[in-house]
């Protein structure tokens, strides 16, 4: 009979001592091992070394949106698909400033994406016939004003003529992420908010709308 109460008693003492000893050895081993933590976005030893950039993310990561205006056909499919209405496209028939023939053309005068509103669902890039609008792996763009996240892909002074989709031709586009890199990376995080034109809004109570007025 080995499993008497006395045996159990000393067995308990021995096992608890050795197991605590072994546990201490395990925790002590971590004092001599490198922590898994990566100090994003930089290592304090070398602040120039940036860790964990977009290139470490998977290819199909839904980061910031970018639009290749060279192949955008101005079909407005993305604007319609957006559930949060963060895309705003204006297409007008105008005379381009540098057009010698002074002919009216269909051109985009605005292509805005408010990345502060975007919920990164990817519904805009799905219907795009040319693959002009797409998500990138870029994700970091700290700003002090959310207005700085309003991305303008068309300069109002230089309207863009839409791309004509030709049958059997694959639209040539820039590598994914190149446009976004130019727009989002290395921006000043504390840049002042841009001055946006005031949009007049009806003030409640001072409505000039006469439709509800009593008829004469």
């Amino acid at each position, binding site marked *: 009979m080995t499993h008497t109460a006395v045996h159990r*008693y000393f067995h*308990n*003492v021995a096992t608890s*001592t050795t197991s*605590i*000893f*072994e*546990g*201490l*050895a*395990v*925790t*002590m*081993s*971590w*004092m*001599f*091992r*490198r*922590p*898994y*933590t990566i*100090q994003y976005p930089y290592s*304090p030893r070398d602040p120039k070394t940036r860790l964990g950039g977009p290139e470490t993310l998977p290819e199909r990561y839904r980061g910031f949106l970018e639009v290749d205006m060279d192949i955008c056909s101005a079909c407005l499919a993305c604007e319609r698909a957006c559930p949060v209405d963060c895309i705003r496209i204006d297409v007008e028939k105008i005379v381009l400033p540098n057009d010698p023939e002074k002919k009216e053309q269909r051109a985009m005068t605005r292509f805005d994406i408010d990345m502060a509103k975007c919920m990164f669902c990817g519904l805009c890039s799905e219907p795009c016939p040319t693959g002009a609008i797409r998500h990138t792996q870029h994700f970091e763009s700290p700003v002090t004003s959310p207005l700085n996240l309003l991305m303008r892909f068309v300069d109002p002074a230089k309207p863009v003529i839409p791309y004509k989709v030709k049958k059997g031709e694959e639209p040539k586009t820039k590598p994914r992420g190149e446009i976004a890199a130019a727009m989002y990376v290395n921006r000043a995080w504390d840049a002042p908010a841009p001055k946006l034109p005031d949009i007049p809004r009806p003030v409640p109570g001072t409505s000039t709308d006469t439709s509800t007025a009593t008829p004469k």
Partner: protein
Amino acid sequence: MRALVDLLNRSFAVPAVYQPYLAAGVIFVLAFVIVVFAAVYSGVLIFAERRVAGRIMSRIGPNRVGPHGLLQFVADAVKLIVKEDIIPDASDRPLYRFAPYLMTMGVFAGFVVLPLSPHVIGADLNIGLLYVLAITAIAVVGVLMSGWASNSKWSLFGGMRSAAQIVSYEIPNALALLPGVLLAGTLSTQAIIRAQGGWPWEWYVFHSPMMLALFVIYFIAALAEGARIPFDLPEGESELVAGYFTEYTGFRFAAYFVGELAHTWIAGSLAVIVFLGGWQIPGVSVAEIDAAQGGMLWLYEALALAIFVLKMIFVVFLMIQLRWTLPRVRVDQMMVICWKYLLPITFVALFLILGFMLVWPWESVGGLLWRVAMTAVGLGVVVVYFWRVRYNIVAARDRLYLKFWI
């Protein structure tokens, strides 16, 4: 304290009328120094605790405030002090307000008899060890008081648990320190250190196998006394929110923390004093330190201080490491550990040591051989420990990484 008064008397001609004021002033200044020391020690400890916890969990820990996060505790303290001080409506207001100070008072008062070096000590009482064991037990009154005065079930449970725990573990705690008193023949902390020596085989921990066991038992009991993991039942987060200080906020909450953290100094310091040879410098006898003058005296003081602090770091590190190694014990397990294991083993070891002291007195050759053998055993434990540490690193196919400041 008396030494300081004498020194002031020798340096300045203080009239007899002002002697009581001088003594009172010295007491006040020393008390202030001790409180500041305990508070700063708590801050440094919580920094060390968080960094060590981080590394054990393969994290880094706080490293943003100040160089390597060293000033994190200042930020924590400022944050706690500026918080709103909430006193529950249904609480017993005077008791509720007083309880945290009673607890910190009990802990701070224990610092008085804990030496740092041959001359740095608040007061070398001839009943030092008894005093420190008795005065730190006052903390339990504060804990129980806060548990009751909060008028909250969680607080009351925490307070009751704490009372049961501290009262139970007082016994193995005191009994494990008793052989040191028997060997030195005194309760004075300084005299116990003076009876030991600088080399490991002159420490009481390696006196005999029983002494080594009692060191472990003292360590376990001291952890329970300070309510540290694995014995932090009074504040078990998973069942009692925060235990006896559930209802506390702001400065009073911080006072509890400082009290608990400062208690690790008392627990570790007693282990160093009674078991690990205190501030004794290897190769320098006590007589040489006493006879030293001028520069040599300062050198010895600094060396002794460094050695004491080094030993304290070792003991406190072990406490921190245990905290992040072991899970919390259950209430019944806590009682079983104390009454069924620690207490009987302590008694048996105590009587065996009495016999041991008769057969192999401290000065005898047999006693020395035992001590050298036990030192070898202790060294062997350390070697096996680091061999197991190495095994754990190799088994994980990891590389050695020796940067401690990330």
